[in-house]
């Protein structure tokens, strides 16, 4: 990405999302599950930020909060100068045209009773004042842009393959000319050969329309291919955040290092020299989080301080942020 485009589009500060869970404690007792806890990041215009993490790490919830699809209980979300979390009514409706979602499952995210064209038109009908003719015209253009044939417009979702359905979902997300598109695991439900088609399409569209992506995935190969910077989440927190080269070349948080080493590789050389860092056990109970670092119980290098104090996410130079007591400004691997 060229330097002149490095203006922030999305700024998320101290975002928190919590859910009430009933767990013991008798009638009316409530515990909080902090699905997203004190998360801050910035996405530059025209770039892709990937949020990676395992199931339950809070990556999808964070994205839903940014799109106002779940309520955040604390924090700020700023999209090109608009305070998204404070908006209501008509104002919010306007902002919804600026943030659109591509969902993981192309089967359940399309209304089976709507024709493809109507699915793509839907955001225009509900969020804008465009006439039906204008809506159809836009839908036609988008159909071509995502590689579907015009005669497929009148078909229903079940008449499409998984990859084609995801194309419809992408066309729908593009309909309102959004500034930010949140891709939540856009290819993980697709067959490997079809994944490449969709990833290439997303890249092409980004170039053509200058799109900004918030890209959520658990597949590090896909992330490495798609993103400009990466935030790694664990149990609701960002544990490491850096640009693509720094994160993959020099993963500093032990969790990131373990995650990267766990990816099976076809590259014989990589297999030969990557030391597999096995992290035993399972993540802690998200309702009763342990004191200190949330990763400490599985961390191969945890010290006493890790079990006592929660580490902060600190910039250790060149925007490489890590939440680990053991990493210092020298950015040496602790493993």
């Amino acid at each position, binding site marked *: 990405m060229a330097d002149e485009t490095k203006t922030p589009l999305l700024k998320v500060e101290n975002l928190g999302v919590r859910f009430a869970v009933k767990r013991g404690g008798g009638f009316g007792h409530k515990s909080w599950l902090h699905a997203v806890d004190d998360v801050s990041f910035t996405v530059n215009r025209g770039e892709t930020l990937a949020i990676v993490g395992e199931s339950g790490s809070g990556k999808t919830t964070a994205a839903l909060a940014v799109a106002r699809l779940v309520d955040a209980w604390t924090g700020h979300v700023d999209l090109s100068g608009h305070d998204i979390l404070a908006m209501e009514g008509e104002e919010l409706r306007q902002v919804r045209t600026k943030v659109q979602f591509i969902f993981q499952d192309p089967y359940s995210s399309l209304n089976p009773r709507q024709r493809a064209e109507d699915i793509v038109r839907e955001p225009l009908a509900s969020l804008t004042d465009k006439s039906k003719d204008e809506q159809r015209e836009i839908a036609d253009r988008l159909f071509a842009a995502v590689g579907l044939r015009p005669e497929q417009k009148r078909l229903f979702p079940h008449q499409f393959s998984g990859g084609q359905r995801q194309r419809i979902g992408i066309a729908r997300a593009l309909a309102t000319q959004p500034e930010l598109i949140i891709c939540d695991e856009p290819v993980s439900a697709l*067959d490997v050969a079809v994944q*490449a088609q969709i990833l290439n399409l997303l890249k092409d569209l980004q170039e053509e329309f200058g799109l900004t992506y918030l890209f959520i995935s658990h597949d590090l*190969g896909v992330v490495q291919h798609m993103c400009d910077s990466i935030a790694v989440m664990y149990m609701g927190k960002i544990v490491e955040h850096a640009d693509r*080269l720094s994160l993959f070349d020099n993963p500093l948080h032990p969790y990131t290092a373990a995650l990267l080493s766990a990816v*099976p*590789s*076809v*590259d014989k050389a990589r297999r030969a020299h990557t030391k597999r860092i096995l992290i035993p056990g399972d993540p802690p109970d998200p309702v009763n989080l342990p004191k200190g670092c949330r990763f400490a119980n599985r961390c191969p290098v945890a010290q006493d301080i890790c079990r006592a104090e929660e580490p902060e996410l600190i910039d250790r130079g060149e925007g490489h942020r890590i939440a680990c007591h053991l990493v210092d400004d020298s950015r040496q691997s602790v493993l």
Partner: protein
Amino acid sequence: MSGPLLKVENLRIELTTRDGVCPVIDDLSFELEHGENLSFVGESGCGKSMTALAIMGLLPEGVGRVAAGSITFDGEELTTASRPRLRDIRGNEISMIFQEPMTSLNPVYTIGEQIAEVLRAHQGLSQKAAWDMAVELLDAVRIPNAKGRVGDYPFQMSGGQRQRVMIAMALACQPKILIADEPTTALDVTVQAQIFDLLRDLRKDTGTSIILITHDMGAVAEMAERMIVMYAGRGAEIGPVDQIIDHARHPYTKGLISCVPHIVDTLTDERARLTEVPGIVPGLAEFGRDMCLFASRCGMRVERCLQERPPMQDFENGQRAACWRAEEV
């Protein structure tokens, strides 16, 4: 016992659908050696799981049947074996773990009861002995505090732990073959690494042969010695894993390897476009036609591909590929 542990020859499985009878597996042959890890790769709908079900004698009744060919296990023909004999073999000699550890366990029984059931049914152990053995097995698949967890219900365990329970059940009778059908697809990568590690160690300790069904070329490279690439019910390519990854002889194999953004070591700002394999796997109605079924998606297609089914061609070290232009790939 000399010779391969499992030998599948010219297997043809037909499914009866609304549109008629289709060969979901069409003239498939392969061998599995003692203690070997063989992988099946391909997209959904290519017949990987169907092959596994055929070996287990679990083809959907009334719909699927073995129409031709043979499956020989340890010298014994399975396609004609009686039901009681097959039941005896399943679980005892050949067992299977499935993709969904959530749905393959019975939610209303404790995991101890479920593992013990296998042992009582197949090995005639007493209640007490089976229960003790269940604890041992849980320990072997590295469930921490096995004695305390054996009375847990499936919902009390995480996805990775449930998959370990499935593995414990599958290994209860020390089978000669373990078929793992996408065992880690529903799991996170760090948990996948734990499960692979476990499978590797178990194979080392028990000498069990493993058939790993997957769509992840990385997993194949990590786990298996040989692989079979399946396409539309046919074997597209078979051979040693490293050799195929270095030099695939079938355009589909090549496509499968290069269409995935693999994590690489030497990262640059340059990002090559992913190679696409256009289109999708043909529908069942197309299966069985006398042509190369991959032709419609293939960049190297020639006239002959549309008119004649390519036979398997032999290359060095037992690598074989079914492509008219395999020499040039």
